[in-house]
């Protein structure tokens, strides 16, 4: 267990520094890139918050779908091969749910404001 502040809190502090202190003093390209950097740190923060549980759930789903053990990357590669060959399709029980769950998690981390994600959340009947 690390001491305080947590990784999330550190990232928040750096993001705040970029947005509230660095950016107002920058112009043109440097200001633009500082904004992009702050957005990148927002992704890091959300991944620190959401990633661990979501990754564990994704791995569990992959093991069930493929009926085997392996690392996240191995199992995702195998899933790709099976989809390519048509051995797993949207009619295969669990595949559609797995892909939706995984995709919604990615967006919750990468770009929670994206219009397609907001609409998919409504369509899935979830709040967030």
């Amino acid at each position, binding site marked *: 267990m690390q001491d305080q502040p947590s990784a999330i809190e550190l990232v928040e502090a750096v993001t705040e520094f970029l947005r509230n202190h660095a950016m107002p003093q920058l112009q043109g390209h440097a200001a633009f890139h500082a904004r*992009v950097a702050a957005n990148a740190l927002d992704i890091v923060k959300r991944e620190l918050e959401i990633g661990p549980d979501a990754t564990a759930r994704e791995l569990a789903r992959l093991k069930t779908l493929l009926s085997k053990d392996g690392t996240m990357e191995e199992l995702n590669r195998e899933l790709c091969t099976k989809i390519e060959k048509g051995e797993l399709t949207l009619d295969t029980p669990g595949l559609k749910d797995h*892909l939706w769950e995984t995709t919604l998690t990615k*967006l919750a981390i990468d770009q929670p404001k994206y219009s397609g994600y907001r609409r998919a959340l409504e369509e899935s009947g979830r709040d967030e």
Partner: protein
Amino acid sequence: MGAEANPIAAPLAEVARKHIDGATGIAALKRLSGGASQEIWSFDATTSDGTVPLILRRAPGGVRDAGRSGTAVALETEAKLIQLAETVGVPVPPVRHVLTEEDGIGQGFVMDRIPGETLARKILRDDEFAEARPKLARQCGEILAKLHTVDKSTLPPLRVSTGSGEVEQYLQTYRQLDYPHPVFELAFRWLRDNAPPDTTELTLVHGDFRNGNLMIGPDGVRAVLDWEIAHVGDPMADLSWICINPWRFGNIDMPVGGFGTREDLFAGYEAAGGCKVDPARIKFWEVLGTLKWGVMCMGMASAFLQGDRSVERATIGRRSSETEVDLMRLLAPLK
């Protein structure tokens, strides 16, 4: 930097004197932000009674990079296509002069500078365009119908690209990038199973008809720009590309560029002489267009990992997931 200090200023002034009626020289030469594949210069030809607003579109440093030429047409070809499009009534910036060797400033062409706006955020939100917005989708349909009627026998040599051919091309790129994306896999599989038949009638296709490449004024579409990836292909591809979600800039319920409906786009298209719109091919191209954008994002991630340490590139890499949610909504809708 004054025009005098720019090495292309003097030769460009000579071009203006030779090819623009009454021109005595040039003024206000400046480089506009543009892609890596093109230099775009804005300048005015000065005449005794005023100025003529012009654009020079030139290969970087005057020479088009052969390494990029897989999809991009030569600038001379681009100029020719603009001229052909003009003859069938597509709004374009008239081409004034195609550079020749004796002009001494490389490959490119000079065209009229059409006033207006290309930035989607302004077009979709500013009051100035409020009256134009409801008309744009139908206009886009009408313009594409005309564009697709260009007589193929008059075309310069162009790449021919079918639906199945483009799927294989992007699949190859995706495989080379070598990172597992199960949703992309699903999309490739669906595209292979649903490709339009190779007997589909092909036409001239603009290839990048969307916000950003349309010069728009308060009166509507004034010019179709950037013909560099024009080719011979399925006309439905142009109708779909402008509808992919990234070009809606958040206005998800306005599928055509964030400003209009498919019904208006298709009605304009069919009324102006376009072929009957085929919903199955429209969907195929929308899935493929979305997937293309996703593969491009993967390419950004790959470039970053190979040493281009731009944070911007890195974050664009993380935008593949946006296209994944769009693909899932197209292929595995929740309702």
